[in-house]
């Protein structure tokens, strides 16, 4: 089997091709470039590393901080700006940031109305954000945390670290960000973030593994004709490994567990989000969207809003995830509210 065969151009014995200098400097150099490219939107600090909205802190506005391992770009730095995040804290590739930069980001965006941490449910992220929140509280900053866990691929939360926070996190960040921008209190912003998280379900699949720069080898292996159903955003497994199938069948495999879980019902208004894992072209994502829309229509579910593209990725992995968010009128208004970030911008 053996993994490299699954990586297309990376034949046996050849080193992995990446556009990098030093594997240890990948995140620093990439974030520095992000700061240069988007100087109108953000300020970048490199020690400890964090990305802050250019006009932060904003007096009287709730600050929103998210973060996690790098390798999921544009998550999270790509969502820093008007109407979304006030700061992002990128860790090493696929590794949670440590508490120091989370604390630094929290202090940098505290405008006196408190700070919301949006944390994906991965053990390391939760532990490091908890530690940072304790430190921030000791400095007199009110911090609330919302832990996202929208991944239905993880079945039984009693015997696992719980459902993972995956693509639904982007929707939580957008809607909570709009709530903070309109002047909601910390309590109100946290409540709506929880409400989005409670109403969104996601599931993903991988056609190929991805290669962490400092490891230099695939993070898992798949045979030529094999795919992994139910991956998290690092390619770590979920449900099962199967042979590759046509797109419509794959979409059905993801949508089935998503729709059953909440459950979504006829008459619901939803946001349908088809997300690429980094290595799958848009032409395939739209092809998948077509089938997902068809399934929802058959069930009498109305797609009120949509999002298609690479918004939370796993390096160069080929694959996708589908998320469905049940909307209410307030969520729709907040989704439509202006946003101006590197990766999402409309209405302003």
């Amino acid at each position: 089997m053996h993994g490299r065969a699954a990586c297309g151009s990376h034949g046996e014995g050849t080193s992995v091709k990446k556009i990098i200098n030093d594997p240890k400097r990948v995140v620093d150099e990439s974030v520095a470039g992000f700061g240069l490219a988007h100087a109108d939107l953000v300020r970048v600090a490199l020690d400890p590393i964090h990305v802050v909205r250019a006009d932060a802190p904003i007096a009287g506005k709730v600050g929103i901080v998210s973060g996690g391992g790098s390798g999921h770009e544009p998550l999270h730095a790509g969502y820093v700006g008007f109407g979304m995040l006030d700061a992002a804290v990128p860790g090493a590739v696929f590794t949670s940031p440590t508490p120091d930069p989370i604390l630094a980001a929290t202090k940098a965006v505290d405008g006196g109305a408190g700070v919301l941490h949006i944390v994906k449910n991965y053990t390391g992220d939760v532990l490091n954000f908890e530690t940072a929140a304790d430190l921030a509280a000791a400095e007199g900053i009110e911090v609330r945390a919302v832990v996202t866990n929208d991944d239905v691929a993880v079945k039984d939360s009693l015997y696992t670290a719980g459902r993972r926070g995956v693509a639904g996190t982007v929707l939580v960040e957008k809607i909570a960000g709009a709530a903070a921008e309109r002047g909601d209190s910390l309590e109100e912003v946290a409540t709506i973030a929880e409400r989005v998280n409670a109403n969104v379900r996601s599931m993903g699949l991988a056609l190929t593994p991805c290669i962490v720069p400092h490891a230099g080898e695939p993070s898992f292996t798949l045979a030529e004709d094999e795919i992994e159903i139910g991956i998290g955003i690092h390619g770590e497994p979920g449900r099962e490994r199967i042979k590759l199938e046509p797109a419509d069948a794959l979409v059905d495999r993801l949508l089935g567990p998503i729709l059953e879980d909440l459950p979504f019902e006829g008459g619901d208004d939803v946001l349908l989000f088809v997300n690429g894992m980094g290595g799958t072209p848009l032409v395939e994502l739209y092809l998948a969207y077509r089938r997902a829309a068809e399934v929802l229509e058959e069930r009498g579910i109305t797609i009120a809003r949509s999002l298609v593209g690479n918004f939370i990725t796993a390096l160069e992995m080929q694959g996708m995830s589908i998320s469905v968010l049940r909307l209410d009128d307030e969520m729709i208004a907040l989704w439509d509210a202006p946003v101006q970030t590197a990766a999402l911008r409309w209405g302003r």
Partner: protein
Amino acid sequence: MALDITWAVDWVRRSAAVISEHRVELLTLDREIGDGDHGENMDRGFQAVLPKLDDLPAGSTPGDVLKLVATTLISTVGGAAGPLYGTAYLKGAVAAGPATSLDGAAIAALLAAARDGIVTRGKAEPGDKTMIDAWTPAVDAAEAAANDGGSAADVLAAAADAARSGAEATEPLVARKGRASYLGERSAGHRDPGAQSTALLLQAAADAANAAAGA
């Protein structure tokens, strides 16, 4: 003989060396059932501790050394291992207190406090296929050795042996905590990388104690 600051510093140096030496092994174990970063993160953390050892003020205690390790690991390792090991060393430092030398009973108490700290933060139980499966038998063996009147070196040797067996015993387990838990049944057949790094670190402690006893 009791163990003093020289042992504590030597333990840290040996830890850094052994983690560096086993970096690829830990990366490989983690790639099999986790996300493939444990060796890299632990190596980064311990390498960051080394230069700070030279800045320890005169009169520092073993507890000061452990506290230095704790704060450095928390701020450099990331992932789950950073806060978990950081907490372990921090609780160990508190248990060691201001003592300038540690006998067998004090070492056993230090290890127990470290283990308890990891349990409190990570909420794992024995059998969940985590570092706790190396720590728990290590603490049990350390306490037994201390109750038998063992020296600090005896206590650490017992702890290291038990941690190594505990790490090996994680191989057939199905993970219920941490990232490996997403694999379910497929996590069986692989050794837990956190249990393995625990075994390596406790072996380094025992080796440093032996070196101190031989000196």
